[in-house]
């Protein structure tokens, strides 16, 4: 097994290794989240359109060979190409990332119901980019990287509904692992094991559950938010996810366990029983794009994951962005004076950035900002993990005041600001990005994870007051200080969060 792989997989799924296999399935789902978020944060999805228009107008006007063109209308057309694609790519990637969080919870519910709670911090400790899907044939590197056709190719391989052959990939040579060619095949093996060995009913245990009448509030999952919305060329809103594409499922027996796993498969891969598009590579080892007709990519019935055929599967959302990306990159390359299409809206982010590089570069604020990003990402995993040990009232508090706030505001606040820092490595300038590394919270009395986070907040506000002084402004106490106090042993301090006076 190559270094960087998440886990060592056994050769078959059976009752004796079921716990380990489910932990592996959870690891697969978890690993996709920082992978997709890294790419999401690399996109400038709402840049100033007038500045962009001026830049394009200037480039077109300065280039030779464009005398016959209507520069103004072409600059306008290209501006809209860039703005709509960038916003759409970001919205669709976010819609997939949100569903991956749902998959993480669904897989965790299955593991919790049948064997034991999920160990998310354990996975995070092992997750080092670039990583690989252990046992996947063919193997391919998974980078935390900026948006590009290469990165979308990786996304397509992760979510592929069918076995594929990429001449550039290395054949899996480790016979000690369960060989599978798609994630869906792994889940099929898990379903078989559940149906043959774990019929249920299972003993009640804490899970993340869907809303239900006469039950405590459970507002844990929502497909769409403003971050999954993009605007079409006429600036009408388009929603990244359909309402009927999935929800949390409480796992009580084999039928509900299989339903949970089927939902993961359908959202990721679509309806594979119907005619659907597949992943094929060209002579340059890049995926073959679908044709683009009048700016639209054409899909088949099996490419959708919902009954109303309003939402493409993860694979097909990425295939749409890949196909459009190829189309626009070729269009821009044919026009004199223009830069590469992606360079207009993608930050110059290094693949698989590391905290150590930031530390070595010597900008204290960047180093602290990255540490804070890693700390809140690790804390999110701790909070999710803790939900599998607690009653519903505590789950609600941790989820509402901790996980939602952290995903929407705290992690994204750091992710969207860290790119204001530049660092150099091997004489190359890069825009800084979240590294999604495990943050080793100290486990010592009087030094809780939350206190360690707030210490980083204080240090960052002092190191870079221009960007971060608001962190310690009492007016914004609803952000970082209002996090719930969750300990490494899954203890949740009652009546938290408390806002300082």
């Amino acid at each position: 097994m190559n270094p960087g792989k998440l886990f060592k997989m056994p050769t078959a799924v059976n009752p004796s290794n079921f716990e380990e296999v489910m932990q592996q399935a959870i690891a697969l789902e978890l690993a996709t989240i920082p992978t997709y978020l890294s790419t999401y944060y690399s996109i400038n999805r709402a840049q100033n359109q007038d500045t962009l228009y001026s830049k394009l107008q200037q480039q077109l006007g300065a280039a030779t060979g464009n005398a016959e063109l209507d520069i103004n209308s072409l600059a306008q057309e290209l501006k809209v190409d860039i703005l709509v694609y960038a916003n759409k790519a970001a919205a669709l990637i976010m819609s997939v990332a949100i569903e991956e969080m749902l998959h993480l919870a669904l897989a965790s519910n299955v593991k919790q119901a049948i064997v034991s709670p999920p160990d998310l911090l354990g996975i995070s400790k092992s997750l080092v980019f670039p990583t690989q899907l252990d046992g996947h044939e063919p193997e391919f590197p998974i980078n935390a990287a900026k948006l590009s056709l290469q990165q979308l190719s990786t996304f397509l391989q992760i979510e592929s509904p069918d076995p594929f052959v990429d001449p550039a990939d290395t054949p899996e040579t480790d016979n000690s692992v369960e060989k599978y060619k798609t994630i869906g095949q792994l889940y099929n093996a898990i379903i078989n094991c559940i149906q043959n060995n774990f019929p249920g009913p299972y003993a009640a245990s804490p899970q993340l559950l869907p809303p239900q009448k006469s039950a405590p509030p459970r507002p844990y999952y929502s497909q769409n938010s403003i971050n999954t919305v993009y605007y079409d060329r006429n600036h009408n809103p388009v929603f990244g996810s359909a309402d009927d594409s999935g929800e949390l499922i409480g796992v009580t027996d084999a039928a509900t366990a299989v339903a949970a796993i089927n939902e993961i498969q359908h959202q990721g891969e679509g309806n594979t029983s119907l005619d659907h598009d597949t992943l094929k590579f060209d002579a340059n080892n890049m995926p073959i794009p679908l044709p683009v007709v009048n700016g639209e990519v054409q899909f088949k019935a099996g490419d959708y994951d919902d009954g109303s055929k309003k939402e493409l599967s993860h694979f097909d959302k990425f295939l749409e962005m890949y196909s459009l990306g190829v189309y626009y990159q070729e269009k821009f390359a044919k026009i004199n004076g223009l830069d590469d299409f992606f360079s207009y809206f993608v930050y110059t982010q290094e693949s698989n950035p590391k905290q150590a590089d930031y530390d070595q570069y010597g900008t204290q604020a960047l180093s602290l900002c990255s540490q804070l990003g890693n700390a809140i990402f690790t804390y999110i995993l701790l909070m999710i993990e803790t939900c599998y040990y607690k009653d519903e009232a505590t789950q609600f508090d941790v989820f509402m005041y901790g996980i939602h706030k952290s995903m929407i505001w705290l992690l994204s606040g750091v992710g969207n600001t860290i790119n204001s820092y530049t660092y150099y490595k091997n004489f190359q300038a890069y825009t800084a990005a979240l590294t999604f590394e495990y943050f080793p919270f100290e486990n010592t009395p009087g030094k809780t994870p939350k206190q360690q986070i707030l210490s980083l907040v204080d240090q960052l506000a002092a190191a870079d007051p221009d960007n971060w002084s608001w962190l310690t402004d009492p007016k914004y106490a609803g952000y970082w200080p209002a996090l719930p106090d969750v300990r490494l042993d899954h203890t949740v301090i009652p009546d938290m969060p408390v806002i300082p006076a």
Partner: protein
Amino acid sequence: MENIQITKELHVCMGLNTCKYQGYSGTNNCAGMGDCSTVNHPCHTLNECRGQGGCGLFGTTEEFCFPSQNNCRYQGSCGAPILNSRFIAQGPNKGLSVWQLARKRFEEKRSASNLPFGAPPAGPYGPSNEYINQLKNQPADTDNSSCGQSGSRSCSYIADPAERAKAAYARVLTMEEKSAAEMNETLKTCPPRVY
């Protein structure tokens, strides 16, 4: 938060106050006639009190169906004030006006208690960004929307800024009129509160 006088009722927008003199300026003669929100917060989970979640941009279908009716601190589904251009981002009423639904819920509560309410001062579709800037004496380019990482609803991609603004105004008006026409359907498709 800003502009809070602690003797004032805290509510999320124009036309959603329950008492006389409880609008932003404190000059309203009746419930439902306040000129603007008495709270400002940027988004989901950042509200200080019950009833301050503005709704529409981050949250669940159920939360979006009951804007400004959160039960507790930090349970608000989105920021305040609620501009006329804000649309619901999740559930069966995606793309329709948040403010109009908030106002409808407000009227339902008042009517259920046989309490009076007046007409909202900025009209039946909610406050525009320009209205709030004029009311608060803010620069004309102050953006009072919240939570938006996805571009502004009150925008368009037209090159000429004047034409761009006109197109945006027309698009928001279309959404407002559609939302008003479909309000009964909106209420029907909203799932009942389960808590």
